[in-house]
């Protein structure tokens, strides 16, 4: 199956003009599969961390959203132990006008603004709700533990 023009274009642009704090490199053997890194946003408990993710563009893309998952362990109410992300645009709010770049930027933004009201990792969400400071501390520890170089 030939790679749709759109994917090629997106890839080119990601390489040529990367979003700050984000890299996405396709695998040589599967151009729909990307190794992604996201820097933890400044001012968030994830600051300084480099988080690895994988991103896969399904056959129907862009009619269907990409599949994105954290590979690096992260303590975040909307990201579960397996790295799955609870983000609306990756699900029902997906629009074909969104792109890899916008998705990753959204993920990055999610790190800055956890949303414990719509949790995926319930225990983390509970922690965040009950004691945000302590939760952020754990997040920082995890970041240091797992997301530093």
């Amino acid at each position, binding site marked *: 199956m030939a790679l*749709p023009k759109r994917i090629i274009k*997106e890839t080119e642009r990601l390489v040529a003009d990367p979003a700050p704090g984000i890299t996405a490199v396709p695998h040589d053997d599967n151009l729909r599969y990307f190794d992604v890194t996201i820097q933890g946003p400044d001012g968030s408990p994830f600051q300084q961390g480099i988080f690895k993710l994988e991103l896969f563009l399904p056959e129907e893309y862009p009619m269907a959203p990409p599949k994105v998952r954290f590979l690096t362990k992260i303590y975040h109410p909307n990201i579960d132990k397996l790295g799955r992300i609870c983000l609306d645009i990756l699900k029902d709010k997906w629009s*074909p*006008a969104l*792109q890899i770049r916008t998705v990753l930027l959204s993920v990055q933004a999610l790190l800055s603004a956890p949303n414990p009201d719509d949790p995926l990792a319930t225990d983390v969400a509970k922690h965040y709700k009950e004691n945000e400071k302590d939760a952020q501390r754990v997040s920082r520890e995890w970041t240091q533990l797992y997301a530093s170089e």
Partner: protein
Amino acid sequence: MSDSEMPTRPPLFFASSDSEDEDVPMDAEAEPATSERASSPASSRLFSEGSDAEKDPIKKRPILVDSDSDSAKNAARKPPPAKKRRVSPPPPPPSPPAVQLMYLGDLVWGHGWSNVSGKGYIKPGEEVKIKRETVPTKAENKAVAKGKKGGDGKKQMSLAAMLKQPSKTAAAKSKKTDTIVRLYNSRGFQIGRLPDAVSSWVARLLDLDIIEFRGQMVDCPERLTTGCNLVISVGVYMLPTAFQPSKMDTDTNEKPPVMFSEGVETLDEQLLRERKASILKLFDELNLRPTAGANFAQRKSDEEIHDEAMKKMAPAKSKKVTEIVGDGEEIEVEEGEEVTDNDLAMIFQKAQKGDRAMGEMDPPETFTLSLRGYQKQALLWMSSIELGKMDAREAASMHPLWSQYLFPLPHSDGIIDLTADQKPFYFNPYSGELSLDFPKAERQGRGGILALVAHFALQSADETEMGMGKTIELAALIHTNCEPDIDRPVEEKPVGNKHRQLKLSNAFKKVPRKKGAKPPTATLIVAPTSLLAQWESELQRCSKPGTLETVVWHGQNRLDLQGMLDDDDAGSIKVVVTSYGVLASEHAKVDKSKSPLFEVEWLRVVLDEAHACKSRTSKTAKAVYALSARRRWAVTGTPIVNKLEDLYSLLKFLDFKPWADFSFFRSFITLPFLAHDPKAIEIVQIILESILLRREKTMLDTNGKRIVELPPKEVVVEYLDFSSLERRIYDSLFNSAKRDFLRLDAKGLVGKNYTHILAMLMRLRRAVLHPNLVLTSRDEPNKSSQDEEDIDVNELIQRFANDDDAAGANVFAQNALQNLDIPDDDAECPVCMDVMELPMVIPECMHRCCKDCLLTICAKAEEGGKDATCPTCSRGPIREKELMEVFRPPRSSQNPEPAVILRKNDFRSSTKLDALMHNLRFMQESCGNKIRVSARSSFSQFTSFLDLIQIVLKRDHFEHYRFDGSMDVKTRGAAIEQFKAPARKAKVLVVSLKAGGVGLNLTVANHVFMMDCWWNAAIENQAIDRVHRIGQEKTVYVKHFIIAHTIEGRILQIQKRKTAIIKEAFRSSGDGKGDPESIENLKIMFGDEEE
């Protein structure tokens, strides 16, 4: 006696004594008549008047038999002898030779059996008469006579003499079943019969009165008993009657062949066949072999051929196919064996060998175009045929139907004179004819008819390779040979200026000549309706103004043809162009009122696309035969469409004797072909060699260059994928059709439900083109604009263009609208991130997106049961039909339309349509506006698809024209005119495959899009060749659109199967059943895809 003794035998034939004959008064008259031939071994014996035996018995030579002085002919007419037993009296001595008896050889027949008993009937060495008996056989048999013993050894009479002539029909009839050949002694007493094995063919020869057998008893018992064995040696002599033309050739030609029904063998045919068979058998027995000419080594016996052919015919009988001939005339055609490509190649190969070296001829001054080399050759060829000069291609070889034999040398007194020359004779194993004259292979090889019959020929190009300028060649011919006959007094009065202005057609008329025996000068051209205008314009184009007058005789306003032709005008040549349809309808009413078409004697009749009358039973064909003309030409790309009999109709039109006689044609060509006798093809080759000039584009001229240099042709197949909606619709149709088919197939009912299955296939083929073609408004899921399609799209566009000022609700929308006409060619679709080829605007927010992407989004949303929303801002819901297309009409100076318009997305396209439009747009952009495009769809049944194509073209403001079979001549002509007219804009002509297949010249276009595929690739190619033909100067690009994984791929598969090339893949027969081949093809259609 052994054979070796034979040589000495002849002496034994004595003339018999007359004594015995007295008592047979009746016979005397009858028998002599038939029998008398003297034989002369040496070849030169004459047919004597018959003296009989009186001559010295020992000289065997002329064994004359009873004689009547009559020639063989008279003899033949005589009534059969009333009495059986007695033989005629010995004739008078031989008189001057009128005709010769030719010695053919000797035979020995054992196993004759006697039907008398007693002594004295005959002794070894005595003469035996071998003859047929007319009397009812039963009586005869009983009549075994115990006769007295015949006399002594001396009965010598001529033997064979007593051939009985089948006298009248009644007699002939009984003969048929009765093949008894009786033996008589010299006194005329019957002594026995020949064995059945021998008598079966000997009887025929005797009946035909062409061979004489002179027998001599070799061995028999002293005393005959009923059933005892007789051994006879026989000298075989050919009678002069054998060399008379056979009845077939002369008589039957007058009868219109239509009288014979195909399946039934006529009496004539049967006689003919029996004659051939018996003669061949005789030659075989005599061990006579052709020394030159047809080679019979692998020839099947005639009986075999007949049987085999009949076998083939039998099952074929039930198969009738409806074909369309002429102008839409439908006829039932019986299927015969198809001619394969190989056969065709062989057939034509001979006909065109040596063509390269043919001479050339320049057209007269009145012809304004210049001819190419091969066209000049054709002109010379046609012209010389018309004028009856020698064939441009000389053929002096022996007529291929004939074989040469040598008469064996007779032995005279036991010595064979080796110094003597063997005289040759010729035998035609097909007609059974014998001849002493060398049969030359030449046109109209049959003497006697040759003189005034038209000069004819077929000029042809291969089916797929039209466009060889045949119109031009014929026009040149018309200019060259405008005089009725060479010997016609040339009395062209140079004319004054007297013009009668009564009618348009009189405009050029000059002084009227006296009426009366004015030889015809006018040419009639019969062509398919779609080509009438083209003929007219081509004829005018190549003529000096005023030298040629053309009249299209068609439609309601048919001029007074007779008047027009009578007003003769020495300075101009008259050409009448009419259609097959008119011709047929005129012919139909010819009984009631006279039709000028058939009243006029034409100088020349030209049938264009002459295969239109290939079926001899069609009205068209009958009308064509009824024309009276001195010169006849049939022009066709396919003289043989798929059966050898197709050729017959042309020969009939050309009046090419003897082949114009159907039973003749059938006996010598159709039946042998059915029996796979290679001779059939050879004969056709011969026929064509003299009357057919065939040209292909790829042929080389004398200099080794192609006779026609055409620009290259690039054919591309573009595979497309269905949209998911189309896929779903198609798949559901296909699956249900497949289920049906498998169910029927399992029950073995495919044949019975053939039409039903064909209908399903048709539906599938339409589904591939556009879902709307298969969805009735009832089962259409989201009812689309079927109704609105009739609304003027421009009007809609206009309305929306005006409306949308009010549409913008937000700032972005307003901006978007205001900026609509700013060409932002680089605008990228947010979804596919490509340049928006066909941007669409979402009415809610005025966000733009390309059409494909938006429609996909809508389809996707619908699938998931959700409302579609704007991909950019998620506003929604959006509905397909409310979307607006941003459309930029092609710009041109005379185009007043706004640069950008919005139009409602009320037309649902299809994958194929989109592909077409995509290609057209692309060409328009990349090549400017200079390209003309001829887009065609196939097949009149899909004119509804042509409609859709026109709609999209209109939506995109392409200048387009339409050409299909449903339009009348005028409209079609106008469409073509406009399409051809020079313009700066790209133009598109939408043509149906069928209408576009014939004759049409579309060389102004150089792009062809084939929108669907037809079973027979040749038909498609023919359509493409409308564009890729003489006159085309640019490379021709052809694109086939094929939707992947659909029935279309399988159609291509079938196209590749050899059989499908020649015939339509799915013919149904009259009773709605398919033949096995077709069912096989069906299985391909519904089989699992192998990929």
